[in-house]
């Protein structure tokens, strides 16, 4: 039986992978202090080049959210079909001292999402390629869900 041993990040610049304690990778302008995610080659605020790489905080709070209830057309790429598609949460997570980033949420039940709640980074399998390689993406999950597990 084919087992999926191989994995890779959906984009190698987004987060540390493979890593037992992965972190999102952003950048901070050495001239004006502006944070960016994903890491930028130059600063979107002042235009200075060569910003410093930063590992973004793994924990933050939910700033805004919605649920994606229909399966997106391309360029969406998952292993789902219109029959197996399951709605997913999308939100903006406020990372203290850095910025707010757009992220998928592991939770898609609106009753379990609350603006201001504590969230933590969770890397998940986004799709599996034909050769069995797992394509990993970043998401955030509510911390209270984790504590119940």
């Amino acid at each position: 039986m084919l087992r999926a041993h191989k994995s890779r990040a959906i984009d190698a610049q987004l987060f540390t992978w493979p890593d037992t304690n992965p972190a999102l990778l952003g950048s901070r302008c050495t001239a004006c202090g502006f944070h960016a995610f994903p890491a930028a080659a130059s600063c979107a605020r002042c235009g200075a080049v060569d910003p410093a790489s930063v590992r973004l905080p793994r924990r933050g709070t939910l700033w805004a959210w919605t649920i994606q209830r229909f399966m997106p057309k391309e360029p969406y790429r998952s292993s789902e079909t219109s029959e197996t598609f399951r709605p997913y949460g999308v939100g903006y997570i406020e990372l203290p001292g850095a910025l707010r980033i757009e992220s998928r949420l592991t939770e898609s039940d609106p009753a379990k999402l609350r603006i201001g709640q504590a969230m933590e980074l969770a890397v998940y399998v986004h799709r599996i390629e034909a050769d069995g390689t797992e394509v990993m993406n970043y998401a955030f999950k509510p911390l209270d869900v984790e504590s119940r597990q």
Partner: protein
Amino acid sequence: MRVAIVGVGMHPFGRTPERTGLQQGAYAARRALSDAGVQWQDMQFGYGGSYSSGNADALGNELGLTGAPFTNILNACATGGSSLLAACKEIQSGAADIGIVVGFDKHDRGAFNARPAEYGLGDWYGEAGFMLTTQFFAAKIQKYMHDYGITADTLARVAEKAYRNGALNPNAWRRTPIALEEIKNSQMVNDPLTKYMFCSPAEGGVALVVCREDIAQRYTDQPVFVAAAAMRTRLPGAFEVYGTAVALDTVRNATEQASKAAYEMAGVSPKDIRIAALQDTEAGAEVMHLAENGFCEHGEQEAMLRNGDTEIGGRLPVNTDGGCLANGEPIGASGLRQIHEIVLQLRKQAGPRQVPGNPLTGYTHVYGAPGISAVTILQR
């Protein structure tokens, strides 16, 4: 010198299988030319665009190849506003006396599926499922409702008004009123927005004939003047569509910037505006855009809509032609549709949806990806 709009024309929005997008643009142009009593050959220049239906200068194939300069504009939802802005500058520079602005489009069914690379984003952004404008608008109104106490009833009221106004507009696509409860209880698409709270990509065309203020009377006894046309783009860290991140400090968004610039240019304040067309690609957008364009404080929309302030007979009628919700969104034509409606209203030619009284000043606003906004202030 102000620029005058002396002719307007529109191809009905919706679905027209028998005409291409370009042909719908030509139809609108013919109507605008006829409205101004001029010929295509009289046009000294043209500006226009479409997102999905080809270059607007191909209109020459339909209307006649005159040799006049025609510049294609492609600026997302601000395509129409940017075309009008360019036309105003052409006239104000003294380079030309009269010209045409045209926008048209014909989109496939279903949500837009833009490519991340067009916006300087990595492929991962689309693959992961973020390349949907609807998500941004839903997350933004979700937060707005939380911060300012806006209810789902208010969102439903926006959509209910749109379809009711659309029923009064022969050029609108959705012309059947839908009850408030049905809107509220229809299928949830992107929480908190239901199916009937979204507009759909559509088809249509709109054209304007514009000229120097001092010759406007040659073409019409009811010229409408462009008191301001402003377009702005996003600032670093602002909360905008297709943004991977938002700064911790509050940053003025594209709408707020364009609005402020337009008021300054026209020398008027929000209190002077008697009728407005605001981007309402979904119901939450109209609510937030009321405040972002200066028509109320954040949170006042709840009472405003309950009181009927934005109805055709209200204090500030908004989207009297049914807006994007009832007309759908052909990107190249959508902003010009707003201008078409305000011109009709200021001329008192809007028929059963005519706002009462004597409106002298109107306002149009569009917002689109990736954080771009165009505002005009129009005066009779």
